């Protein structure tokens, strides 16, 4: 018998009688103002939130807040004035020197401040992790209350890779002292647009 | 209402005043209390050490002593919890089942069965409540700090009826004292450290007395207090609730 068959046989023999799945549709939060809640949560986790209103304003803000002499990468064609448009075929190692990545979120979650990104909006899987700084464009109407609502929207979508990102990378491994910028971005900015 | 008084082994031997206070308090409140003289122990010291299988004759004796009462009351949350969870008898399981449903720790008996709303007691001291873990997480004598649920405390409810008494606060409202039965011997270093830290939490908030529905926790803390020549005393909750206003 192969290891696979051995394990499956043991599991089948030892598992208890079937126990039903619970109804998780009961978890409903009626958030009065998801944009406000989102903004509070995101700030609370160490993120920077700016109500930009439009992509045009985002461009101005990027110019103002980030060093234009360094590499800024995005997959959003409308930002081509301020960012190099990423090439999804590039070797991920070539992204090592990216200073700022600008990505548009598929959705954002008010209860925890996280944004949901899939690899098609990332341009490249490693980009939101390897960049020194991360900026995410969040459309106000894409904000949902909870993770339950988020998964209801994601539903059965097929993707190769997707991730929730809830702030700048962080660690508190040394004496519980919070340090922003562990291995991923040192900062994360969310630009809210209508 | 016939009440069987269960006085756990170490309370019987080492803290007779707490037992007397329990008896007197129940009598004062009009209960018909008797003490079956052949009682010994609930068997918890053996069971918690992994020897539950050796507790059968102890259990049978318990059933023999406490069958036929309307209620069984004891001034020890830990022993009551053990009986509730683990009392079984090959000889008479029906009686054991009945006892498991009828046994009450003193505080819950006063608040849930007698439902007392006032007490003629006076204790003009600053008192800190030690929530014994078995009373708290086993018998739910108060809300547990880990849960997201409404606050309540049966011991606090009773102590608030005592005139002159001032309850003191704690930083960690329901942390374990480290007694833990034979844990206090087997894990001496951690046990004592836990006890010391509980005491410090009480003393830094000004408690003169530490009280609890469980004397085992108090015995452990008393040992540490006395070794360190502390002026802070331990007292079983029954002794406070039974303290007469005339004495003061």
């Amino acid at each position, binding site marked *: 018998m192969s*290891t696979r068959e*051995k*394990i*499956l046989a*043991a*599991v089948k023999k*030892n598992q*208890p009688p*079937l126990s*039903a799945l619970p109804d*998780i549709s*009961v*978890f409903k*939060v009626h958030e009065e103002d998801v944009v406000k809640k989102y903004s509070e949560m995101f700030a609370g*986790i160490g993120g920077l939130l700016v109500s930009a209103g439009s992509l045009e304003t985002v461009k101005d803000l990027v110019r103002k807040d980030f060093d234009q002499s360094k590499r800024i990468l995005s997959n959003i064609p409308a930002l081509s004035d301020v960012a190099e448009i990423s090439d999804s075929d590039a070797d*991920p190692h070539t992204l090592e020197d990216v200073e700022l990545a600008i990505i548009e979120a598929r959705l954002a979650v008010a209860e925890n401040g996280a944004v949901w990104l899939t690899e098609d909006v990332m341009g490249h*899987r*490693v980009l939101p992790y390897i960049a020194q700084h991360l900026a995410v464009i969040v459309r106000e109407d894409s904000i949902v209350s909870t993770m*339950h609502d988020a998964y209801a929207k*994601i539903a059965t979508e097929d993707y190769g890779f997707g991730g*929730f990102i*809830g702030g*700048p990378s*962080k*660690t*508190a*491994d*040394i*004496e*519980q002292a919070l340090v922003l910028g562990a*291995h*991923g971005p040192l900062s994360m900015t969310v630009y809210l647009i209508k | 209402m016939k009440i069987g008084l269960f006085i756990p082994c170490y309370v019987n031997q080492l803290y*007779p005043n707490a*037992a*007397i206070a329990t008896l007197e308090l129940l009598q004062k409140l009009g209960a018909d209390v008797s*003490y079956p*003289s*052949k009682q010994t122990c609930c*068997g918890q010291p053996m069971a*918690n050490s*992994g*020897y539950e299988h*050796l*507790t059968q004759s102890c259990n049978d004796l318990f059933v023999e002593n406490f069958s036929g009462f309307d209620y069984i009351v004891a001034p020890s949350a830990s022993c009551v919890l053990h009986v509730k969870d683990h009392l079984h008898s090959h000889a008479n399981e029906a009686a054991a089942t009945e006892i498991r449903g009828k046994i009450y720790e003193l505080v819950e008996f006063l608040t849930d069965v007698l439902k007392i709303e006032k007490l003629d007691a006076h204790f003009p001291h600053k008192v800190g409540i030690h929530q014994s*873990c078995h009373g708290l*997480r086993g018998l739910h004598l108060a809300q547990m700090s*880990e849960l*997201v649920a409404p606050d309540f405390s049966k011991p606090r409810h009773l102590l608030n009826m005592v005139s002159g008494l001032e309850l003191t606060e704690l930083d960690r409202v329901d942390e*374990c004292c480290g007694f833990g039965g034979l844990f206090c*011997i087997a*894990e*001496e*270093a951690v*046990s*004592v450290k*836990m006890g010391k*830290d509980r005491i410090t939490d009480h003393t830094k908030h000004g408690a003169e007395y530490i009280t609890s529905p469980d004397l085992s926790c108090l015995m452990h803390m*008393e*040992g540490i207090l006395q*070794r360190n020549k502390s002026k802070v005393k331990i007292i079983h909750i029954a002794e406070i609730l039974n303290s007469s206003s005339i004495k003061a």
Partner: protein
Amino acid sequence: MKSTLDHAALAEEFNKDEERVDWHDGALWWIRQKRDRSAHQTPQWEELREAASAIKSNVISNLHDYLIQFEENLKKNGVKVYWASDAEEHNQIVYSILKAKEIKQMVKSKSMLTEECHLNEFLEERGIEVINSDLGEYIQQIDNEPPSHIVLPCIHKRKEEIGELFHEHLGTEKGLSDPTLLTRVARKHLRNVFLTRRAALTGVNFAVAETGEYVVCTNEGNADMGAHLSEVQIASMGLEKIIPERKHLGVFLRLLARSAIGQPITIYSSHYKKPRPGQEMHLILVDKGRSNLLARPDFRESLKCIKCGGCMNTCPVYRKSGGLSYHNTISGPIGAILAPNLDMKKHADLPFASTLCGSCSNVCPVKIPIHDQLYKWRQEIVKQGYSASRKTFSMKAMALTLSSPEIYKTAGKTGRWLLNNAPFAINNKFNPWYKQRDMPDSSQQSFGEWYAKNGSKK
């Protein structure tokens, strides 16, 4: 750390430095408080725990079918699947994957399973270097010590000690101990590691049967840095990590980080489904005692664990004895109920390293009755003969005394008489009670004696 000392002895060592115990206790209590605040801010928190527990009950009861479904979907997604019964088989699989690609260096994100399997040692013996990329695990690795906590691997170390390690291994200035500066140094060093490793191994937090994707949660971003820069991505997971459907992630991701460190969600919750072009993805399903644990009705609920570490943070024994005292990869209350399933003799002391206070069960996001299981493991360990014969002897004497009212009365009197009249017989250093505690006053008559004289008069 190789040690033959039991938890009590190791805890006694740890307690020799009281200032350190206070610091350790305080750091973990602070995390427990953050967890409380976070739980209180989450509507329907207790219902969420209940739902998570029920989902895991379903998983345990239907694991066979879920495993087959998960495997099918993994294959559809282009992921290569392996099965391993034990540590040896798991380690061999990892080795063969690396060997086929002639890879000599691998970067690894946090995985308690590979710690338990001693994968790093296995690969190093075969000429493959492994670097742990989680900062805490990296620190533990350079100090040649196992993690003391599953979420906070080096919570027992002072920053000065970490500074000294960095001085020795990374060439930082002597005396440098600022956490931000040390983290920056590690960031720079490990960034180079990520960029140069062809293989990356991650653990798995949740594996979705319905879709074949698996989710890895970190705060540092180390799993993603490793995985997305690698040409060979390996994931190792215990069988119990399965969840039925994608939507169930909503329940678990709401609970995990809040229970662990009081954070609303981990910074990164990465859903790995398909390899990127040119990349290989491998996933190893590891049994290592899980199917055996399923056969133990009293203990199988421990398979629900999502490794948040909440039980450790709340456990006063853990906080005051340190994770390394548990001499097991997974320490604290959850370690004490998982370890005996793997080796009852070696871990016979762990279920006794608890006061059974029950706080662990109350914080557990999947409602494992941890303290009840500790009690049940004690019974099992004694039944299987793994307790000291001296203890059995005294327990039998106690059982005899307590089952006979007559012997009990005499013994009680003797005990009190001894306490009172011959303190030297009891109050000495061989009595662990007396070492730091006075004996109770035993000068009075017992209540039984008092009642015989006064009881009937009332």
